[in-house]
């Protein structure tokens, strides 16, 4: 589903590379965890997957279902099934969350040549999914992310994801800022979406999340490179020993 080959990227010509040769293949049905120290390039990788324009790709390629993803606009990628749950979700004043959800869903449907969902059908779907994530209808009437607590923002991201039913889900530190109960609720929401057709890349600092969302593969990203790949046990090992060994390896 996702093939990243020797990806190099930087911010601007005079800056050092942030990503320095990433190779990563994620197959349908798989869940990959990406861990790594602060500033190692995890969010950068997720932004590049989503098509943020601040970065210059100097080498390498990304294939999404066999297609050259770097040629696609962010909204085309979204319609093709790429979803990013942001580490820091953006506030959109004046736009009710519900309105945003409807506009996003129908924009994607339109891009795929489907009819817009009728309002009753839409409401029914949203209500059910919001209830699963313990999100109140009142919150959905508020402007998107404006004044939401850290945890509410993250839950709203997962609500969007479950509504849009993407093929590739990239979750950037969705667990940070969640209380213990919310972590469980959000993880259940994510697990519900696991399916043989869907792939996930879960970026996190804490192995605790991986107790809930059990990954098939765990990668360690350090200084812009994947320096170690293993199974769930790798996360446990990192929890015990930290990144010291790998930071040296990347230098």
């Amino acid at each position, binding site marked *: 589903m996702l093939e990243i080959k020797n990806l190099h990227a930087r911010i601007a010509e005079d800056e050092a590379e942030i990503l320095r040769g990433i190779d990563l293949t994620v197959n349908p049905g798989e869940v990959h965890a990406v861990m790594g120290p602060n500033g190692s390039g995890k969010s950068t990788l997720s932004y590049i997957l989503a098509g943020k324009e601040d970065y210059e790709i100097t080498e390498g390629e990304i294939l999404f279902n066999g297609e050259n993803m770097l040629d696609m606009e962010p909204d085309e990628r*979204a319609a093709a099934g790429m979803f990013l749950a942001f580490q820091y979700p*953006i506030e*959109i004043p004046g736009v009710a969350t519900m309105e*945003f959800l409807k506009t996003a869903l129908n924009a994607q449907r339109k891009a795929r040549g489907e009819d817009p969902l009728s309002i009753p059908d839409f409401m029914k779907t949203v209500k059910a999914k919001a209830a699963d994530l313990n999100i109140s209808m009142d919150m959905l009437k508020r402007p998107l992310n404006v004044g939401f607590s850290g945890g509410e923002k993250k839950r709203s991201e997962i609500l969007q994801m479950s509504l849009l039913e993407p093929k590739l889900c990239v979750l950037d530190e969705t667990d940070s800022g969640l209380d213990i109960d919310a972590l469980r609720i959000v993880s259940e929401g994510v697990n519900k979406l696991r399916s043989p057709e869907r792939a996930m890349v879960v970026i996190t600092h804490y192995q605790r999340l991986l107790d809930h969302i059990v990954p098939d593969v765990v990668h360690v990203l350090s200084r812009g490179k994947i320096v170690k790949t293993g199974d769930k046990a790798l996360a446990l090992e990192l929890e015990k020993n930290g990144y010291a060994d790998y930071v040296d390896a990347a230098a």
Partner: protein
Amino acid sequence: MPAVQETIDQVKAIDVDQYKYGFVTEIESEKGAKGLSEETVRFLSAKKDEPEWMTEWRLDALRRFKTMLEPSWARVSYPDIDFDELYYWAAPKSVEGPKSLDEVDPELLATYEKLGIPLAEQEILAGVEPKNRVAVDAVFDSVSVVTTFKEELKKAGVIFCSISEAVREYPDLVKKYLGSVVPVTDNFYATLNSAVFSDGSFVYVPEGVRCPMELSTYFRINEQNTGQFERTLIIAEKGSYVSYLEGCTAPQRDENQLHAAVVELVALDDAEIKYSTVQNWYPGDKDGKGGIYNFVTKRGDCRGRNSKISWTQVETGSAITWKYPSCILRGDNSRGEFYSIAVSNGHQQVDSGTKMIHLGKNTSSRIISKGISAGVSQNTYRGLVSAHRKASNARNFTQCDSLLIGQDCGAHTVPYIESKNASAVFEHEATTSKISDDQMFYCLQRGLSEEEAVALIVNGFVKDVIQQLPMEFAVEAQKLISISLEGSVG
């Protein structure tokens, strides 16, 4: 390239003329009265079959106009207007004053149909939802071509006709109220209008009557080098209510056209007037060529106790907008409201706002202004709130928000506050925000196109004002705003 940067570049590259109403109607037209002179005024007045007192009123205004200077305090710039090069009269040949629908030239009916304006009474009458009926006065260049639903309104006692007809048919009402809110010498453009006003609407709602339907006027400038000087007068007698909407469009022409209107509203005891405008005059092309100069004086007089006047405006067109719909809160407990959305794109210049003049006791006013600037446009809110000595307990709340799209446009807020009464409480809030690259990226990541993203954010921004519009026009206004900003995105 960040999304917003791209937006700006596209504004430069793309023709901002998404203007749908830029077509010209091919119709035989009579054009006359070139240059600003006594002869012109007499010609106009004769064309309209006006009584002597009206002609004299105009001539007096003309004499005063000749002594006045064009104001220069607004944040707009444009080359000098040569008033002697303009025509002051243009009318479709087939029109000899307002007629019934079946007598109207089909070419004109087709024009209004193309503009999406419902002139056909029968169809609407047969409709299943009678509550959505709207009576329309259609003004084409200098004359009113038709006014619909007149008979039905008359049954309720409401007079709705062209101002020319009112001058002839209801001289006492016109004499009593014309110029009573905007005096002949109020300002340069108002004085000009008083001398050469062409047509517009007249509304009289008698005591205790709630007008049974929305009233509206659609102004269309068609002819070249012709000024349009609309004059509208609305009188709401004690305890009456009326909601009125005006819409404006013009063809796409390379030269600038002048529109200098005067609108006067009078609300007596316990009366309420709701006046809404969707202004979509041709704004000019991407290089700032052509477009309407819109110099307008609109003022409402809350003359009676507990009266209320509210102005709602959606301003998307015109090369230059100079417009300050105001309220004089004369009656005790009267209330004035001003809700405004002003969109500027391309090379448009907007200087608009309101004046709330508190004279009576316990008067209150509310101002909500939303300015959106894109392209290389300049958008200024200019407002005055004043309380006079006797205006005890005057209250005002003002909220002025500006939204910028791109880096080359400007938003300016110029509030003036004057209070001569210690018990007056005036509150003012202002914000300026931008559509950020991060917001655009977030929306795009969720599958919205750049245009959909801007429309969504802008609609969120203007929501409070859109809600003030009559339901039938809210959707139209929202669409219009998106279209006006179309040049600002991909």
